[in-house]
């Protein structure tokens, strides 16, 4: 029953670098790559210099990875990153309102879901406030400029040079030399409208740049009766990126974005005088900007270092909280081969976060200003044991101001059984360190009238330990034919020290009138076992027809450490909020050389704890390119029902997602 309750998840963390390493999900792996396994599209993205590096297919990655390509995004008709993520088997995507989503991997979903690391070009975009992501405003990219979205399910801690408990989502934008010239898009539909412009050109002899700007309006979704909800959202944003290649071995990147948005929202606040939990309509004001610099030096064919630093500042003003958070981050990473059979990567990182949290009666923080620091280091060794057997060992070490020293090791083994099959397994430990909210928040959930009145409140706890995960994963991949591939992952996760709330009572004199406080305080009180299966199937029956199917199943068993204490039942806290079964089927059909017909069908199981029934969603897209530089598309989303609910958040009055249609023009010159 609380605001930041499921907010309790997640770590202010870390180093990162998936993106800035240039080691991407497709690339990390082992050994000499077999380039002939790559498609022409993939080959066209391989740099000549890096061809001898670890350019690797998913096939040889000892982790549950999935890559959304630029083509997948274009043909999905998605207009935002969260919508594009629906296609990934095993990712839970539920829209709460026009500007809010609940997104998670392998359970624990919520508006404040917090066991996921999300990066845009190497910059972490989750908020240290609760270690989750405000998905709406953080969508600071031009979708046409996204190269790929790499999703790694499972603990990404060590292997990815990052720190994530249940997964990593890595959004990479295209290099500026690939986005030269002008691009303009105009979109209009019954639920949203917008326009975007990008221009790219040379910058001196060795560089390229691009600048972009976009603006959009998302109209209000529906309430349960089908009337417009109070959640419309306007936003403008812009940014730039410049890349230089110097002396053939140094690559410099400077990039930045800003955004300014006004999403409406409807939420419940607390009051000591009746009505006790009034529902109010609010207009959020959000602003943010970031600047990132990256220097990558190639030391040899298999060796490089990367230095990256960024500054991110964002503000969010809403009725219950005015927040401003500034983050400074610097990371260094170095990779080199050792002794012919080993490949070592190590890195160091430092992050400083300063916040100013000006709360209200409903939500407040003590202290209101805080500066925290995070120091981390990691090392990873990929060892080629035999010609077809690779072992990856590594660990991350960090020190944070909330829970102190943490260690997150992993061991992964990959066996290439034959050219068409591989098997991998992994055992990892990951932690979710307490967030600012977990430590310092107070949420007044509701007042109960009476003499004296009673206040239901949730209290942070600055003595929390990290939530711990030990994860076991087993994966199998098969590519029996060129046009067919199968990827199956099974996992078993044991979580310990999960944060739950314990009840107690006290009496307060302020603010008046004097009142009883029924307190619920965060503690490391629960544990959970989750297990599940994720399947991805890709099949190209014809030269011009591609099919993708996905299935995910998860089961969650949660319990409290000590059943005699007055703790919210773990099952209530953690179960029934994630779909047990999820299916996705996508079809990309080239009707002719310049006409596409695309379909996506999603089925999501019910969420019993949130009273959300199962739903099936159908999206259709028709795309036409009369010329190489011009594309028209017509997209219908959620075509099967008038409106349906996808999630229910405790504090926010959520909306239902209506059927919608839009048309879009993309023009390049």
């Amino acid at each position, binding site marked *: 029953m609380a605001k930041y309750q499921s907010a309790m998840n997640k770590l202010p963390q870390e180093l990162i670098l998936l993106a800035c390493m240039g080691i991407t999900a497709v690339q990390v792996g082992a050994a000499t790559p077999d380039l*002939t396994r790559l498609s*022409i599209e993939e080959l066209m993205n391989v740099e000549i210099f890096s061809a001898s590096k670890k350019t690797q297919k998913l096939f040889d990655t000892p982790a549950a990875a999935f890559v959304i390509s630029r083509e997948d995004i274009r043909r999905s008709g998605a207009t935002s990153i969260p919508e594009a993520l629906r296609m990934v088997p095993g990712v839970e995507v539920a829209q709460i309102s026009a500007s809010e989503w609940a997104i998670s991997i392998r359970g624990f979903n919520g508006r404040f879901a917090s066991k996921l690391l999300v990066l845009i070009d190497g910059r972490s975009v989750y908020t240290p406030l609760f270690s989750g992501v405000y998905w709406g405003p953080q969508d600071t990219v031009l979708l046409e400029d996204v190269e790929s979205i790499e999703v790694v399910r499972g603990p990404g801690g060590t292997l990815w040079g990052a720190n994530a408990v249940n997964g990593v989502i890595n959004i990479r934008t295209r290099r500026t030399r690939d986005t030269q010239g002008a691009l303009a898009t105009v979109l209009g539909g019954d639920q949203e409208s917008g326009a975007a412009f990008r221009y790219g050109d040379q910058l001196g002899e060795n560089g390229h740049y691009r600048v972009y700007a976009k603006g959009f309006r998302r109209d209000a979704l529906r309430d349960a009766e089908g009337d417009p909800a109070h959640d419309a959202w306007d936003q403008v944003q812009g940014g730039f990126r410049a890349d230089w290649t110097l002396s053939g071995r140094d690559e410099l990147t400077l990039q930045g974005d800003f955004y300014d948005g006004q999403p409406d929202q409807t939420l419940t606040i607390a009051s000591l005088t009746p009505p006790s939990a009034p529902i109010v309509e609010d207009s959020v004001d959000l602003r943010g900007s970031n600047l990132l610099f990256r220097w990558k030096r190639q030391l*040899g064919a298999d060796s490089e270092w990367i230095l990256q630093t960024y500054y991110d500042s964002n503000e969010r003003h809403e009725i219950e909280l005015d927040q401003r958070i500034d983050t400074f981050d610097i990371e*260094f990473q170095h990779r080199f081969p050792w002794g012919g059979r080993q490949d070592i990567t190590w890195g160091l990182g430092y992050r400083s976060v300063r916040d100013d949290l000006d709360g209200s009666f409903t939500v407040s923080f003590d202290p209101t200003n805080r500066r925290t620091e995070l120091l981390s280091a990691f090392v990873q060794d990929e060892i080629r044991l035999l010609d077809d057997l690779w072992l990856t060992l590594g660990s991350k070490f960090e020190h944070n101001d909330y829970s102190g020293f943490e260690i997150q090791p992993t061991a992964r083994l990959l066996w290439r059984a034959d050219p068409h099959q591989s098997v991998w397994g992994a055992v990892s430990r990951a932690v979710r360190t307490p967030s600012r909210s977990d430590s310092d928040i107070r949420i007044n959930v509701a007042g109960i009238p009476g003499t004296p009145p009673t206040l239901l409140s949730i209290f942070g706890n600055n003595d929390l330990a990290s939530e711990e995960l030990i994860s076991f994963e087993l994966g199998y991949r098969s590519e029996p034919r060129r046009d067919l591939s199968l990827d199956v992952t099974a996992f078993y996760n044991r979580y310990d020290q999960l944060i739950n709330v314990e009840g107690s009572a006290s009496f307060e004199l302020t603010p008046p009138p004097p009142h009883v406080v029924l307190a619920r305080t965060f503690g490391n009180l629960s544990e959970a076992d989750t297990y599940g299966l994720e399947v991805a199937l890709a099949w190209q029956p014809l030269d011009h027809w591609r099919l993708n199917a996905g299935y995910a199943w998860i089961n969650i068993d949660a319990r409290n450490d000590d059943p005699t204490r007055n703790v919210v039942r773990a099952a209530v806290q953690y179960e029934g909020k994630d779909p047990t079964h999820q299916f996705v089927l996508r079809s990309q059909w080239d009707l002719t050389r310049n006409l596409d017909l695309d379909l996506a069908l999603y089925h999501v199981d019910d969420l019993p704890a949130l009273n959300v029934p199962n739903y099936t969603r159908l999206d259709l897209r028709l795309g036409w390119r009369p010329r190489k530089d011009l594309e028209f598309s017509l997209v219908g989303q959620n075509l099967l029902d008038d409106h349906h609910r996808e999630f229910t958040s405790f504090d926010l009055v959520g909306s239902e997602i209506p059927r919608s249609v839009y048309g879009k023009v993309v023009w390049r010159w």
Partner: protein
Amino acid sequence: MTTGAQILLLVGLFVALLGGVPSVQANNESEYRLKAAFLYNFAKFVEWPPEAFANEEAPLLICIAGANPFGDALDTLSGKTVASHPVEVRHIPTATGLEPCHVVFIGRAEQGRFQALLAKLNHLPILTVSDIDDFARAGGMIGLVEAEQRIRFAVNLTVARQADLKLSSQLLKLAITVQ
């Protein structure tokens, strides 16, 4: 912890920057490994006339005419298949007797005589590929082009059609120019 953090970071940077690892220049090897993979992929998107193969299991011959810039990079192709045809790689230094080949790669070293080679192969169902500048415009079928450290390709569809080769639309879609 602040000072500790900074010291650790500085030490790390120092080790990396100064202690570094000997730098190695980019080499041709990786470039031609990449080009070999392109050759293999092209073969998969080309349809030869039936008479180009003796039978379903007949090998698909990829030939290097003249100097071999690939080193052993092409070895990775041997043993692979295109449709039902096993790939066989042949190096033909004299550049004569190319007629049984299905794909002929002409290296940059053959700049002086590639026109004569193309004339000999004219109208034969042989896919000609080269990284010589403007190869496709000069009458070759697929020219590999280096652009911003990556490899792109240009296609001369007219010449391919004259040779009775069908290039898939997927391939044409990815080409930087089609003429």
